[in-house]
Structure formats: structure tokens, C-alpha cells
């Protein structure tokens, strides 16, 4: 009896949900002040542009608002062009994104800074921008600022934790929580590397906490996800690459380049394959982290963009729950990716050390 009732209620609820869903999609009548002319005048909403602006790096940290109500922090631009040159991004904020400075004219286009010879070059710049030279760019962008913040936070937390130890026991909240995770990572490195693990534990711990914190910071609104940027993940994996090259046993390179008991041409092919293997291992680490985090953010943003695509208030009822669910999933992914990065990098190091 009870089960039957449960089934009937379940069917009924699903039926109502279906009706609401299709009603929302198929109608625009529910929109308040519905006016076709008004809607046609509004600029066409472009979701890919919004998503790419969120994922890309930029010279200003935008918080909220547009034009007059905008609240954003402009960040310094540092260029190397016959000596270091310091600007602020607010100098570039005009119609053409151009700044004049002592006979030098700089222009920002698609996030890159070009050096122009005269102001006449601005005509047809979009078509022939590849002709002009780019300048070496060391500017402190949004992602760099956030990575500084994260590293400062890590320093604060871990120096506090270190100072709170008395008789091998932490007297600090961070210490009590983080000790479990640290022991867990040491266990992983014990499994993968073996007895020589102590050399590599500091590297593994710092990368783990850096990746974890930057993943979690990316989920806070207005903060950029710095692990969703391929250059940062590339530098992280570059360290692993350097470890696998320089901290090897003496006979590692010898094994790589010796051809024994196999035909000569196959041996050369095998050497070629080995070198590719050394290069690809850290590259997969880089691309895995980048793709996981950025794809999660793309899914999150596309669910939010559904509201603006349907132009209907009632689309909130399925857009917001889905975004909450996916952001919960993203918390899990941020822990999992940090764990996998550490696990695989220790595995690669262990393969080289124990060969």
C-alpha cells in the first residue's frame, strides 16, 4: 500500500516537473514587461565570449558592475623595451587601448602588447596586427596576484603550524587538521618512491597544497582559477620534468642510449620512443589539471548562461540547483586532482630513482 502511494507521488512530481520544464523552455510570455521591440534592441547575448573572458588572464581584476558602476582594480604592467618600464593598466583605458610614452606607442590587443611606429598604424590594425612587434611582458596580471596571495597564505598557515609544535604535538587548529593530510601524502610517497623519499617530500607537499588552495580559490566568485591557466600548470609539471632528468641514478642515461641484442634500426627507434616518453609524462600531468579545472568552470558558467539565453525568470529554478550541484562536484574534483597530481608525479620520480 505504502509503496504504491510512494510510486504515485513520484510519478505525479515528475509529471509536474516535466510540465514546468517544457513550459519554461517553450514560452517567453512569462517575461515581465514583455515587449518584442525591447528584446530586439538588446545586444545578442554571446555565451562563449562571457566564458572565455572568465577563463582568460587579464590586466585588471574586475569585481562587479559595468561602465559607471564598475568596481575593478587595475594592475601594473611591466615591459622590457630597452630597459624596464612601468605603467598602469588605467593608462591604456581609452577607445583604442593605446598609450604614448616618450616616442614609444604601445597598444593592447587580445591581451598582448604591441609596439607601434606611429598613430597611423591604428587603421586596419585588426587585419595586419601580426606585422608589428610584441614586447617582452613581465606584467603582474590577475593570475599572478592570486598566486602571490595563495603562496602568502600557505606561508602564514605553515609557519604558524611549525611554531605551535610542542613535544611532537601540534597546538593549533591548522596543525591538527593538516597533519592527517601530510601523513597521507608521506604514505603515498613511501609507496611510490621508497626509501629515498625524504628528498622529494617538501616538493610534493608544497605542490599539493598550492594546487589544492588554488583550485578551491577558483570556486569563490570574482577569484580567477589559476590552475585553469595552462602556463601555471606547465610550470608545475616542468618541476617534475626537471626532477626526472637530474635526480636519476647514474645508469639511467646509460640504459637509455645503449642498444644491445636488438637490430640497429629498431634500437634507434626505441631510443626515440624513450625520449618521447620522458617528455610526455609531465605534459599529461599539465594538461590533465588544466583541462579538468577549466572544463568544470565552463560547465558551471554555461548553466548560469542558460538564464540569459532563455531570457526568463523561471529558468532560475533549474539553473541554480544545477550550478550548486556542479560546484559541490568541483570541490571534490579540486581535492582529487591535487591528489592525482601528487600521486602521479611521485610515481614518475620513483620510476626514475629505482630503475
Amino acid at each position: 500500500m505504502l509503496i504504491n502511494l510512494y510510486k504515485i507521488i513520484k510519478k505525479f512530481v515528475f509529471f509536474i516537473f516535466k510540465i514546468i520544464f517544457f513550459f519554461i523552455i517553450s514560452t517567453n510570455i512569462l517575461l515581465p514587461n514583455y515587449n518584442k521591440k525591447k528584446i530586439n534592441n538588446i545586444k545578442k547575448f554571446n555565451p562563449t565570449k562571457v566564458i572565455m573572458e572568465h577563463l582568460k588572464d587579464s590586466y585588471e581584476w574586475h569585481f562587479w558592475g559595468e561602465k559607471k558602476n564598475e568596481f575593478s582594480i587595475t594592475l601594473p604592467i611591466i615591459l622590457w623595451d630597452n630597459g624596464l618600464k612601468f605603467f598602469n593598466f588605467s593608462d591604456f583605458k581609452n577607445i583604442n587601448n593605446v598609450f604614448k610614452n616618450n616616442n614609444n606607442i604601445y597598444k593592447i590587443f587580445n591581451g598582448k602588447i604591441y609596439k607601434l611606429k606611429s598613430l597611423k598604424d591604428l587603421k586596419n590594425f585588426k587585419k595586419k596586427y601580426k606585422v608589428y612587434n610584441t614586447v617582452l611582458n613581465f606584467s603582474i596580471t590577475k593570475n599572478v596576484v592570486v598566486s602571490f596571495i595563495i603562496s602568502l597564505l600557505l606561508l602564514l598557515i605553515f609557519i604558524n603550524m611549525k611554531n605551535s609544535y610542542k613535544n611532537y604535538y601540534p597546538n593549533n587548529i591548522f596543525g591538527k587538521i593538516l597533519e592527517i593530510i601530510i601523513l597521507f601524502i608521506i604514505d603515498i610517497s613511501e609507496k611510490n618512491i621508497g626509501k629515498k623519499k625524504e628528498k622529494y617530500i617538501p616538493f610534493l607537499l608544497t605542490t599539493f597544497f598550492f594546487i589544492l588552495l588554488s583550485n578551491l580559490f577558483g570556486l569563490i566568485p570574482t577569484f580567477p582559477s589559476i590552475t585553469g591557466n595552462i602556463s601555471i600548470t606547465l610550470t608545475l609539471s616542468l618541476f617534475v620534468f626537471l626532477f626526472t632528468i637530474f635526480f636519476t641514478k647514474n645508469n639511467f642515461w646509460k640504459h637509455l642510449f645503449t642498444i644491445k641484442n636488438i637490430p640497429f634500426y629498431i634500437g634507434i627507434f626505441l631510443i626515440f620512443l624513450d625520449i618521447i616518453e620522458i617528455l610526455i609524462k609531465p605534459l599529461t600531468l599539465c594538461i590533465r589539471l588544466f583541462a579538468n579545472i577549466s572544463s568544470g568552470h565552463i560547465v558551471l558558467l554555461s548553466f548560469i548562461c542558460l538564464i540569459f539565453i532563455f531570457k526568463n525568470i523561471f529558468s532560475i529554478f533549474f539553473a541554480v540547483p544545477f550550478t550548486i550541484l556542479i560546484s559541490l562536484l568541483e570541490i571534490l574534483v579540486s581535492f582529487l586532482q591535487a591528489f592525482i597530481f601528487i600521486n602521479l608525479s611521485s610515481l614518475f620520480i620513483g620510476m626514475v630513482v629505482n630503475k
Partner: protein
Amino acid sequence: MDSNLIYIGIATISAGVSVLGAAFGIGKIGSSAMKAISRQPEIADKIQNSMIISCALIEGAALFGIVTSLLTVFK
């Protein structure tokens, strides 16, 4: 027909195909790990660890495909 649309269509299909491959591989790993754990529940930890590693390796291959298709879409 717009040539840009054709590119986007091909890119989305290629992303779907790469995900299919990854799903097949991860499904096989999961099923065999379940079988192994049900046979020998004592070494479940070891099996889980190696399962996650091999899942990550397969995922990496699939993500290569997804990233290339993303690059074609957003270009």
C-alpha cells in the same frame, strides 16, 4: 552554409568520441576492480590506488582530444 559552423560540428563530434573511449576504458577498470575487491576484500586499498592511477592515465588521453576540440571551437 557557414564554414565556421562545420568546424564547430566536427569539433563537438570529436570531443564526444574521445569521451566515449574514456568511458569505455574507465568502465572496464571499474568493473574489474569491483570483481577483484569482492574476491579479496583485504587488499581493497591497493586495488583502489592502482585503479585511480589507471583511471587518471586514461582520462589524460581523453582530455587531449577534448582540449584540441575546445581550441578549434574557441578560436
